[in-house]
């Protein structure tokens, strides 16, 4: 590394380039974009969870001041605007395809959840739009609702979609049932748990927004949108919804303020804005308010699971089986079907050598908001099942929980699990040991006694998690039902002055790509970090790309950049060879300098870039001018970040309130580009995981009304709820991508819930407690566990 890049290259904790504009209010988010003649869209939403629409009367609304148009689902159908779709096909165990209901962007005959849009007012101002929306008269015939996934399949449950019986989308399975049943029959010990993985509301800081602009002259449609994957949005909106040919539709996802998965999906609102803009021939903007976000953003999790673990007398795991009912809500969101199947059951081996695993998953419709990927997506649910089972088994068998984990850790790689995944690298003992040292597990007993003197029950909980990231080899996911490939693209454009633009198919919505991607380029080309710009999020600028989710931007997105940089180096060496009048094979490239091997003849990167464009040293027949390369990188495997989190907490005996006093996270993310950004990702992930474990929970009442519809009732974690984290790293490089990266964005959210619940149950001496473990819930559990003693 040269002096110019060492402070900014791979492994340097470079301050984020993008933060100046974010923290000074200079970011350009979708709602900041305004177009001349812009109108506002206000949606008329169903107040009922389940109802037939008998009629919609928009005549009074049309006459309201400032109203440009009022549109309904009937017109949407007339204009042949297609339904929203789920793009991952899952087949049931009987071979039948999943049952995807129609999902029109505006409901015209029936509403299936509170917040379902039935009409849209296009008005000059939001206030005028809201006034007019109140004048839209919808005659509903209210139907009984079902919100509980465990009740959705019951006889007599209200049927949500006319052609889908028992509200069952699919009945899927993975693994060999016969082997698992045999292992259980022979097992010395069986641990059983009933687990609810609570429904969560994503709550990105920036609410969703869409601005559509139809150009009458060119018939081009432009959509500014809060999207994690603008090309995928364009593809779906064009190919499936039929809004416009792909080349006549431009999707721009400018600065996006957080997504956590919820902005992967194609939502009704952007479809309606595009359609409305074409109809009224003016720009149409919608920005969700927080209340709409609670009702209409795709929620996360919502699994009901019965799980069992079979062990021999020595605590060796023999088999695992699980039956899960996954609530997908009123409609199948864009990737919803994959989350409780291939992103969940494939991780049920955890870090352990488990000979056989069998998992059944029923996905059901309910009268609730759609559920789809949310930070971790399936992997937090799997980790929670595995880590709770292991912990409870250890306690039941009176084996130290860390020891039981050690006895079952996978230690040889590659390792083929019984549930598809082939782990390529890892050292689970190393992360456990380092975490136990950092957490001072040895001193825990003493701290527990000390806490007891202050009326506190202290507990300690482990979570030795694994996740599959770097999503994913296209052929593999194709064979599992994905409708797309999950490669990534990059274009590296070297300018004549030697500065560089990288056009990436990845999309940043908080991850800091403008910094980390520039660090990679700076190091590889030996040019100053400041001379690199990262361009993303505009389908007119950037070649087709797959976007950012599943902790894939490093392992897949940066690998594409590496490949393009390799090509740049090859081409630049050709240019340098002409400049230095040497054979191409004699040119060496190091620290931003091209040198003729064994001589002092050299050319700087900038000189070579200029010569590539002025093309004075070679003829067009010898070499094409220019220095710009594109690559599409398809990974060879998933990556498998793993680690150990240890939560130490106090329970106030009198109130049940939980205070986390110590958090240790030791993660193996493979190669790290920017340790500061990685640590930030870990912090944020833990905060979300602790939120799920202790605070967050989306509740619908029996009528399907969202009880937790605002920040006054839905508890988000706050800074004062969390301690300072002890963060450590171990490293095994991923052999599946050129940089050896694994991904870090979801780890905290995946690891944390089990660590918290293991610690609480350790503290209060119960086997199980449901999430969120609120003070009331912990207190109630304490009343039960301590009742005999008290009596």
């Amino acid at each position: 590394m040269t002096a110019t890049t060492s402070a900014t290259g791979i492994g340097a904790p470079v301050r984020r380039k993008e933060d100046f504009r974010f923290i000074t209010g200079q970011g350009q988010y979708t709602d900041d974009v305004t177009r001349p003649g812009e109108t506002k869209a206000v949606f008329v939403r169903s107040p009922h969870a389940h109802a037939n629409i008998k009629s919609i009367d928009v005549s009074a609304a049309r006459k309201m001041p400032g109203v440009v148009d009022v549109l309904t689902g009937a017109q949407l159908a007339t204009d042949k605007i297609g339904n929203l779709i789920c793009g991952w096909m899952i087949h049931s165990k009987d071979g039948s395809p999943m049952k995807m209901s129609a999902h029109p962007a505006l409901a015209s005959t029936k509403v299936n959840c509170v917040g379902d849009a039935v009409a849209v007012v296009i008005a000059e101002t939001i206030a005028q739009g809201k006034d007019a929306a109140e004048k839209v008269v919808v005659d509903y015939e209210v139907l009984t609702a079902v919100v509980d996934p465990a009740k959705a399949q019951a006889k007599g449950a209200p049927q949500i979609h006319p052609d889908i019986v028992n509200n069952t989308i699919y009945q899927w399975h993975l693994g060999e049932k016969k082997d698992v049943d045999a292992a259980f029959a022979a097992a010395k010990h069986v641990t059983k748990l009933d687990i609810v993985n609570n429904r969560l509301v994503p709550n990105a800081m920036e609410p969703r927004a869409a601005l559509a602009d139809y150009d009458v002259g060119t018939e081009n449609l432009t959509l500014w949108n809060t999207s994690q994957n603008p090309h995928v949005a364009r593809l779906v909106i064009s190919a499936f919804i039929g809004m416009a040919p792909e080349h006549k539709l431009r999707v721009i996802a400018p600065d996006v303020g957080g997504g956590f998965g919820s902005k992967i999906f194609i939502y009704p609102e952007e479809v309606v804005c595009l359609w409305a803009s074409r109809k009224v021939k003016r720009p149409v903007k919608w920005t969700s308010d927080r209340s709409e976000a609670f009702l209409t953003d795709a929620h996360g999790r919502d699994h009901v699971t019965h799980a069992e673990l079979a062990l021999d007398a020595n605590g060796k795991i023999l088999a695992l089986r699980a039956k899960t009912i996954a609530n997908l809500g009123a409609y199948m969101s864009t990737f919803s079907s994959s989350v409780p199947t291939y992103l969940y059951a494939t991780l049920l081996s955890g870090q352990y050598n488990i000979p056989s695993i069998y998992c059944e998953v029923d996905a059901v419709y309910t009268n609730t908001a759609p559920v789809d990927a949310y930070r971790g997506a399936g992997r937090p649910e799997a980790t929670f099942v595995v880590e709770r089972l292991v912990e409870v088994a250890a306690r039941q068998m009176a084996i130290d929980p860390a020891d039981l984990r050690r006895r079952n850790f996978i230690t040889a790689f590659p390792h083929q699990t019984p549930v598809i995944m082939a782990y390529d690298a890892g050292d689970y003992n190393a992360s456990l040991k380092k975490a136990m040292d950092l957490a001072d597990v040895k001193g825990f007993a003493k701290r527990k006694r000390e806490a007891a003197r202050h009326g506190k029950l202290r507990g300690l909980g482990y979570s030795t998690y694994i996740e599959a990231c770097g999503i994913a080899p296209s052929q593999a996911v194709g064979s599992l039902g994905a409708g797309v490939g999950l490669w990534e693209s990059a274009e590296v454009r070297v300018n004549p002055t030697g500065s560089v633009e990288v056009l990436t198919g990845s999309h940043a919505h908080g991850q800091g790509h403008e910094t980390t991607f520039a660090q990679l380029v700076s190091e590889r080309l030996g040019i100053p970090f400041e001379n690199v710009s990262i361009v993303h999020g505009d389908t007119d600028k950037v070649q087709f790309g797959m976007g950012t989710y599943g902790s894939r931007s490093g392992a897949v997105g940066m690998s594409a950049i590496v490949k393009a940089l390799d090509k740049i180096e090859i081409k630049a060496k050709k240019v340098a060879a002409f400049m230095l009048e040497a054979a191409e094979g004699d040119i060496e490239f190091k620290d931003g300098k091209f040198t003729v091997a064994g001589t002092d003849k050299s050319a700087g990167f900038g000189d070579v870039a200029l010569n590539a464009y002025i093309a004075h040293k070679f003829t067009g027949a010898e070499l094409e001018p220019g220095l710009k390369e594109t690559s599409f990188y398809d990974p060879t495997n998933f990556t498998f970040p793993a680690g150990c989190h240890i939560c130490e907490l106090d329970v106030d005996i009198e109130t049940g309130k939980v205070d986390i006093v110590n958090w240790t996270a030791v993660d193996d993310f493979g190669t790290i580009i920017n340790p500061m950004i990685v640590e930030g990702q870990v912090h944020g992930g833990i905060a979300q995981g602790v939120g799920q474990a202790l605070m967050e929970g989306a509740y619908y009442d029996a009528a399907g009304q969202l009880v937790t519809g605002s920040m006054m009732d839905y508890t988000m974690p706050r800074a004062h709820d969390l301690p300072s984290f002890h963060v450590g790293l171990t490293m095994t490089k991923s052999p599946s991508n050129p940089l050896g990266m694994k991904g870090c964005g979801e780890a905290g959210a995946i690891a944390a819930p089990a660590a918290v619940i293991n610690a609480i149950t350790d503290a209060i001496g119960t086997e199980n407690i449901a999430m969120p473990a609120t003070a009331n819930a912990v207190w109630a559990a304490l009343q039960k566990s301590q009742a005999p003693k008290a009596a």
Partner: protein
Amino acid sequence: MYNFTFHRPTTVRQAAGLLARNPDGKLLAGGHSLLPVMKQRLAQPSALVDLSLVEGMTGVELKGRSVVIGAMTRHADVANSQVLKDAMPGLAAVPGSIGDPQVRNRGTIGGSIANNDPNADYPAACLGLGATIITNKRRIAADDFFTGMFSTALEDGEIITKISFPIAKKCAYEKFKHPASGFALVGVFVSKRGPDIRVAVTGAGSNGVFRVKSFEEALKKRFAAKSIEGMTIPANGMNSDIHASPEYRAHLVAVLARRALAKANA
């Protein structure tokens, strides 16, 4: 938000006159309860009468054996008042526990008391100290003022101008925060002023703030946590929601009362 007319009187008299002329009008104090419901279109006042320019409605003053606080005094100003911190730190701690800095810098004591949110903190302090609520028309004892959830003894056109708190030698507030909103899931204010012993509870009761007479009786012997050790209150009449069961709220009343007593005696 629906349209409304906006008035900014400079005297209480003008404000009362504006209210009389606008039967659907509302007083605007800090606005931190009113404006959110207006934004959600759940309230539609025809007029807002903003009290922020009315003179003589702010400040914390020592008057004899009482602390008198102007109705438009912001929570932050009450919390930071040296006069109050010296005279009665147990009361100064109450506004310091409300919401977040933004709320404390806008919200007012008069607004909070007039709104009588069943989870608000000030009603517990008023009832727990036997405060007097002073309006443009009369003086109302706290015991008569809080008449139920979001309801008070205030009549149409009546404006709170001051609240007078008798100085209690011993008093303290203990609050268990609602995890999402930061309001009191349960809050207990205890005080002892001569023979007058009070235990007032907010957040728990389905009818708003209330006194726990059984605790007060027991504390007459000795004003200490030990005097109510083992005592409970019935869960009947407690609020029930996703955040806390009636049993838990009733349990917290006893726990927080003991903790408040320990704090008051510290």
